[in-house]
C-alpha cells in the first residue's frame, strides 16, 4: 500500500498546478491547447527549423536534460524524430521499447513510469497501443513531463502540430482553409488530433470515408441535450469527389488491411474505387492544394503512387518538419516557460 499512498498524496499538488497553468507540463492532445499556444509552438518550430538546416546541427538548449522515449508499439519516424530532436538540442535521449525491457517480466506501465521518474528523467515520450495510456502516467508521475507520441486510436498531437506547421508553411495561413481528411478516420489517432488542431485554428474540416470508419458520434451533440460540441463545425461527406471540391489540403490516412476482415469494408477493391486519392480526383481541389499523408503509406491503396511522390505532395516535408516541431515541444516543456 505504500506505493498507492505515495501516488495519492503526490497527485494532489499536481492537480492544483494544472489548475493554475503556470506552464504546460504535458502534451497529451491538442484539445487543451489554445489557438495562441498552438501559434507559439509553430513559431518556435520555425526557429528550430533554422537550426535543423544548419551545417552543424547542435545547440545547447537542453544540455543536462534527459528524455526517455518509451515505445510500446513499433515506430520508425516518430521515435527517430524525437531522438534526433532531443539530440540536436543536446538533451540526453534514451530509447526504450517494450520488447527486451522489464515489461516482458510483467512490469506494469505505471511502475515502469515510476522507475523512469526515479532515475531523474525530465521528459517521457510515450507511444502505447491503449488510448489514454499517457494520461495514466501524467496523472501519477509528478516530476516528469509526458509527451504523447500516439496512444491507441486516440491522439497523436505532435503529428497534428507538424501537419499544422507544414500547411501554414506552404499556404501561409490556416484560418478559413478547407481541409479534407480521407479514409479510416475512426481508427486514426492522427486524424483525431488534426481535427482538434485545424478546428482550433479556424479551418474547415471535412471527413470523408466509409460510414463504418467515420467517428460520427464525436461530432454529435452529447446526450446533455443542447450542450455545445466544440467540433460541431466539422462536416462529413462520404463522396470523395464532392468532398474535394475547392479543397486546400487533402490528407489521406493509412488503411490497415485488417479493416476488411473486421467487416468495416467489403473489399480493398471497393475502397480503392471509392476513396483512393488520385490525380484525377484532385482536379476538383484548388490548383495549389497540398497532398499529405502521416505515413506509413500503402501506396496504391489510400493514395496513388504518382500523387504520393508528385509535385503537390508535401509528405517528405511533413517528416522534416516533424523534427522541428518535436524540438519546439521538448523545449516548450523543459525550458520554454522559464
Amino acid at each position, binding site marked *: 500500500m505504500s506505493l*498507492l499512498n505515495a501516488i495519492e498524496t503526490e497527485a494532489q499538488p499536481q492537480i492544483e498546478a494544472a489548475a493554475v497553468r503556470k506552464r504546460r507540463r504535458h502534451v497529451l492532445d491538442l484539445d487543451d491547447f489554445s489557438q495562441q499556444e498552438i501559434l507559439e509552438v509553430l513559431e518556435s518550430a520555425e526557429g528550430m527549423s533554422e537550426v535543423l538546416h544548419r551545417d552543424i546541427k547542435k545547440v545547447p538548449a537542453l544540455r543536462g536534460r534527459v528524455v526517455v522515449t518509451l515505445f510500446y508499439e513499433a515506430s520508425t519516424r516518430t521515435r527517430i524524430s524525437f531522438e534526433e530532436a532531443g539530440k540536436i538540442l543536446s538533451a540526453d535521449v534514451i530509447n526504450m521499447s517494450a520488447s527486451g525491457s522489464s515489461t516482458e517480466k510483467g512490469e506494469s506501465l505505471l511502475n515502469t513510469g515510476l522507475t523512469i521518474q526515479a532515475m531523474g528523467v525530465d521528459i517521457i515520450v510515450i507511444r502505447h497501443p*491503449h488510448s*489514454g495510456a499517457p494520461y*495514466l502516467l501524467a496523472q501519477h508521475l509528478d516530476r516528469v513531463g509526458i509527451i504523447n507520441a500516439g496512444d491507441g486510436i486516440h491522439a497523436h498531437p505532435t503529428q497534428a502540430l507538424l501537419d499544422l506547421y507544414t500547411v501554414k508553411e506552404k499556404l501561409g495561413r490556416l484560418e478559413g482553409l478547407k481541409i479534407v481528411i480521407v479514409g479510416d478516420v475512426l481508427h486514426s489517432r492522427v486524424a483525431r488530433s488534426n481535427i482538434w488542431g485545424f478546428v482550433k485554428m479556424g479551418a474547415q474540416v471535412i471527413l470523408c470515408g466509409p460510414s463504418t470508419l467515420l467517428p460520427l458520434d*464525436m461530432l454529435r451533440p452529447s446526450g*446533455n441535450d443542447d450542450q455545445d460540441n466544440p467540433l460541431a463545425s466539422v462536416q462529413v461527406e462520404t463522396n470523395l469527389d464532392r468532398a474535394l471540391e475547392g479543397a486546400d489540403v487533402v490528407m489521406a490516412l493509412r488503411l490497415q488491411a485488417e479493416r476488411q476482415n473486421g467487416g468495416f469494408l467489403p473489399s480493398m477493391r471497393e475502397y480503392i474505387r471509392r476513396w483512393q486519392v488520385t490525380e484525377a480526383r484532385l482536379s476538383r481541389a484548388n490548383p495549389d492544394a497540398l497532398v499529405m499523408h502521416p505515413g506509413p503509406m500503402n501506396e496504391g491503396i489510400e493514395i496513388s503512387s504518382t500523387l504520393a511522390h508528385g509535385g503537390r505532395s508535401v509528405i517528405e516535408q511533413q517528416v522534416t518538419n516533424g523534427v522541428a516541431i518535436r524540438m519546439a515541444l521538448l523545449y516548450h516543456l523543459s525550458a520554454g516557460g522559464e
Partner: protein
Amino acid sequence: MAPDTILIKGPRIIDPGRGVDEVGDILIRDGVILASGTISPDDIPEDCRVVEAGGLVASPGFIDIHCHLREPGYEYKETIVAGTRAAARGGFTSICCMPNTDPPIDNSAMVEFIRQRARDEGIVRVFPIGCVTKGRKGKELSEMEELAVAGVVAFSDDGDPVEDPNLMRLALTYSSDLGLPVTNHCQDLSLSRNGVMAEGRVATRLGLPGIPSAVEEAMMARDIALAELTGGRIHLAHLSTAGSVPLVRQARERGIPVTAEVCPHHLTITDEWVLGGQATGTGTGESFAYDTLTKVYPPLRGQQDVNALVQGLAEGVIDCIATDHAPHELISKLVTYQDAPSGISALETALGSALQLVHGGHMSLITLVERMTVGPARVLGASFDHLSTLAPGTTADIVIFDPDLEWVVDPNEFQSMGKNTPLQGATLKGQVVATMVQGRFVYQDGAVV
C-alpha cells in the same frame, strides 16, 4: 434490565409495504418487532434500552439483490465478512451475492460454504445466487433444484450472459417449478466486441471502444420473448439504457412475468465522468480523463439514459435499486482504461447516491425506500416479505438514516476492501446512522458493532 428489548424513539417511520410514513416509535424484543407507530407508554417496558432517533428516518433494512462478495477465489478484492460490514454501513440487512466466484456457486457444497461463512463471520443476511449453467460456461444447465434446496434465491451466470437462446429457454422452462427468478445480464457480447465504455461522443473522442445501447436492448428483447414463451420468471439485471425501460413496460403490460433492477450509478452519473473533472460537486479542481474508477459494466451512459431510468424507477417499471457492488483491489485500477477491471464498490454510497433522486424532486422518500425494500423482496418472492416490513410480529431488520446529512466520500473509511469508487471526494447527502439485523445493532454511530 432486559437487554433484548429496544425502543427506537421518535423517528419518521417509513414502511412502504403498509403505506406508513409517520413519526412514531418502534419496539423490538428478541429480534422481533413488537409494535411500531404510536405506542402507548403503558406498553413500553421501563427497563428497555432507548435509542433516540428523533429527526431521523427508520425503515425496513435495505435489501440488495445484486452484489459481489468475491469469496472464495478473490479474497484480495473482498471477503464475505468485509462485504457484510460494508452492507451494514450502507444500511443493507440482506444481500444476495453473485456466483462469479472461483470456483463458482454451481453446486450445493458451494452454497453451503457461502452460507456457513456468512453465519460464522458475516453481520448481515447473505443469500447466494446460484449459476444457471455449470461453471458459468453457458453449455449445460446447473443442478438447479439442488441449488434451490441448498438455499439459493435466484439463478444467474452473472457477467457471462447466457448467450445461447435455446439454453436460456430451457433454463426458464426447467426452473419454472422452483419458484426462483433467472437473472440475466442482458448483453449481446457479439455486438460489443471489446467495448469498455458506452458508445457515443465521449468514447469516440477518447478513442475507446464503445458498447452501444443495442447490446443491452437486443438481449433484453430476446429474454422477454423467452419469458413469454416459457412462462418462466426472468429478472433483468442493471438496466442502463433509455431504450430498456419501454421494453420492460411493454412486457409488464402484456402480463409477462418480468422484473428489473437499476444501479445507483446508472441513476446519477454519466459517461461524461470518463472525461475527468466531474467527480466533485464541490470543485476541488481538474482531474485527468480516462479515470478507470468510472469503468463499470454495463457502462455509464448519457444524461438521457439517466433521465429515463430515474423515471422508470419512479413509475415502478423498474422494481428496485441493486448496487452491483463490485469491489476491486485499487492496484488493478491503476492501469489503462482498456486493461482495468469493471466495477464500482457501491454498498456504502448507494443510499447517498439514491437520495439524490429524492432531493432532486424525482420521487418521494417512501417511493425510494420502497425500491430498496419491498421492491427487491418482490423480485425474490414471498419468503422475503418478513424482511421488508416493520409490521408487528416480523423480523426486526431495520435501518435508521439521516436523509439530509452531508458527507464527503472517503474510500479509506469504507468497510469494504474495495476502495474503487468514482465518487471519491464527492459530497453525498444522506447517511446511515444505524443498522439492525434481527433486533441487534450491527452498525451504529459510525462503527460496526
